[in-house]
């Protein structure tokens, strides 16, 4: 069964550094998402992406965050200058058609030191 893949599985970075989290969504899907889950807390929506542009973003998704779909297959989340509070599990998801299930990757655990 097709799946969403994320790399790396774990990223350790110094505060203030830039990080790029990578995702390969399911190939024929059209809608893409990033969520995050701080340890012990709920899964929170960050951003949705459709038709090569952001369709919605949360308050968390400030100017330090950006997303890109550079080559039609990868979907990346960039954090420009990481803060300690960015430490979390980041999940990528994709969806084929409107009102269908979203399929999630295994996540990238981001640890900011």
């Amino acid at each position: 069964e097709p799946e969403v893949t994320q790399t790396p599985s774990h990223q350790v970075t110094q505060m203030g550094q830039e990080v790029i989290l990578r995702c390969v969504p399911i190939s024929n899907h059209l809608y893409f998402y990033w969520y995050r889950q701080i340890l012990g807390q709920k899964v929170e929506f960050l951003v949705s992406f459709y038709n090569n542009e952001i369709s919605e973003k949360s308050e968390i998704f400030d100017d330090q965050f950006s997303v890109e779909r550079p080559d039609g297959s990868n979907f990346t989340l960039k954090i420009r200058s990481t803060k300690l509070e960015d430490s979390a599990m980041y999940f990528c998801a994709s969806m084929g058609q409107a009102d269908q299930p979203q399929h999630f990757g295994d996540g990238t655990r981001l640890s900011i030191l």
Partner: protein
Amino acid sequence: SQQGEEDPQALSIQEGENATMNCSYKTSINNLQWYRQNSGRGLVHLILIRSNEREKHSGRLRVTLDTSKKSSSLLITASRAADTASYFCATKEKFSGGYNKLIFGAGTRLAVHP
């Protein structure tokens, strides 16, 4: 506003027993989805129920939806040790566009003991 609040927060049962988890939400929804998360892993989609549906089955899973009470339940029958995981409900709000975000609850941690 918070959506998708599950109860109980934790549930511990023996293999073979049934497990029931409940979810409540506040706004009008388009659909409600249940996900499973094994420790340290990603979210696995279990079942989607639309606002005009009342019950759905998938294998040992049964989901009900009561839009008048803004609540849903997930029943796992004849549980197995492999069902040990956290279970989350997630809602997609109505009138929000086909691509809108999912709003997750805090989840129920299920432990099934052999």
